[in-house]
């Protein structure tokens, strides 16, 4: 698969194949093992032989990493009992072996059809993320598709050491349709793609500092970003968390009264919003630095 293919259009397996050193990927619990949801058949919903999560080990730039990639096409990449157990397993393997863990996130959160099991599964995966962080084993979330990282998966990515987003990636808790239903179409029109994208998209999250890196919409750019972060970790310290507390307080105070994302772009150094909207990831990162 050529790396010129757009990252947001790739499937989970194509993404993994194009991110890692050629031929280095070994999948755990691959489809022939048929590890799948016990709930979906009872609800007459088709199953997937990997339950929507591909996990394994590979090398990136010669360094061994554990990987997990969610399959957005399968029930929205949602986390059920098995999907979540695979995720927790790969994180615990990372903590055990001291090998960094990279997630390619594409999920609306808990799989509603499996009820509370998926909810507990995400909470267990969170504990496992922090088990890695306590051992200074890097955890990196990559968010690069329209399905994005929402619900519990959105929260989980904010627990990782680092987040890489492309401009197609979206990060949040409540998705656009849920917000529209709650607030009304006048207040938030979920079919207004520009608005949705500016509210939760990669460029805004990068400006705010919630995405650590903004990568281009191709595997080569995402790989380059992963390589930069693989050697680092972001351990929790009292000093660091107090600084983060101040930053989040300031953000709420400064922008809490507006619902206009352009105000954030302007305040964070983007003078020409229209131009910056069309800028590539590299150009945008340069514009954001100039502030």
């Amino acid at each position, binding site marked *: 698969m050529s790396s010129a293919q757009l990252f947001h259009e790739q499937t989970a397996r194509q993404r993994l194949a194009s991110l890692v050193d050629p031929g280095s990927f070994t999948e*755990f619990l691959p489809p022939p093992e048929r*590890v799948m949801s016990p*709930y979906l058949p009872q609800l007459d919903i088709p199953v997937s032989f990997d339950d929507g999560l591909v996990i394994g*080990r590979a090398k990136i730039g010669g360094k061994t990493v*554990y990987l997990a990639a969610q399959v957005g096409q399968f029930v929205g990449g949602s986390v059920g*009992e*098995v999907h979540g*157990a*695979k995720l*927790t*397993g*790969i994180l*615990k*393997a990372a903590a*055990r072996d001291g090998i960094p863990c990279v997630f390619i996130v594409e999920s609306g959160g*808990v799989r*509603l059809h499996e*009820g*509370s*099991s998926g909810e*507990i599964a995400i*909470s*267990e995966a969170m*504990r496992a993320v*922090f088990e890695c*962080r*306590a051992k200074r084993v890097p955890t990196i979330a990559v968010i690069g598709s329209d399905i994005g*990282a929402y*619900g*519990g998966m959105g*929260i989980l990515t*904010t627990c990782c050491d680092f987040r890489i987003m492309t401009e197609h990636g979206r*990060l*949040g*808790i*409540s998705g656009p349709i849920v*917000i529209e*239903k*709650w*607030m009304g179409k006048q*207040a*938030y029109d979920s079919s207004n793609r520009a608005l949705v994208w500016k*509210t*939760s998209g990669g460029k805004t*999250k990068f400006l*705010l500092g*919630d995405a650590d890196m903004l990568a281009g919409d191709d595997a080569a750019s995402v790989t380059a970003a992963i390589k930069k972060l693989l050697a680092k970790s972001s351990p*929790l310290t*009292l000093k660091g*968390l107090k600084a*983060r*507390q101040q930053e*989040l*307080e300031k*953000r*709420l105070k400064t*922008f*809490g009264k*507006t*619902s206009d994302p352009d105000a954030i772009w302007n305040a964070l150094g983007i003078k020409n919003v229209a131009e910056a909207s069309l800028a590539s990831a590299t150009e945008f990162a340069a514009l954001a630095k100039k502030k």
Partner: protein
Amino acid sequence: MKTLLEKFFGKSANGIAVKDKLMTGYAEVAGQEVCVFGTCDGTYIDNAAALRFAAHVLGCIENHSKAPIVMLVDSAGQEPNRTAEMLGLASYFGHLLSCLQLARQNGHKLITVATGKAIGGAFICYGMFGDRIDALESASVGLMPIEAMSAVTKIPAPTLEKLSRTMPSLEFGAKPFALLGGVEEVWSAKDDYAAKLAAAIASANTDDNRAALGKKRGGRKLSLDVRNRVLDESGK
């Protein structure tokens, strides 16, 4: 709320301030100082609430070395809101969880009691992160009630209702959640909450035993085995 707090903490409940349905403060359990925070009356948790809780946890780490942290949960979740999302509500919740993790690493035990609504995101963003999680029998614990699940998934409620009899994951409440291992112990209205809380603090440890508990109780049969298969295959 005052009455319920007194059941947990006796007179020392005076040390807990309740403002805008959010609680923060310090109290005593069996003569030991504990840090307390949480929600009441099913209120929503927003960016400001997460920050208030996080500040309280950071203050506890700094000035109350190793004091157990008791988290009380009665919240319907987060309100879907455009500004909250734009500001990164997920990051505010992630920050609160990070503060709780630092507390854990610094020797603070984390105890959760679900007292009312403990639904979806409201439970994930702090209560489910406890070392030991208990719930009152009357608490509404779970992802969502069956009617709501039916509305979103388009699966008829009677179908879900029927399946929930053999699949506690689809059922809503403290008891089915305990069968999944998500709650250690369900407290009945007749229980002595102060004694229960003291015992919970004494027994809490940092191992996440929920998958093992779910398997043992039969409500979540696959989690532990699937996780262990991943650990086996990756360890070869």
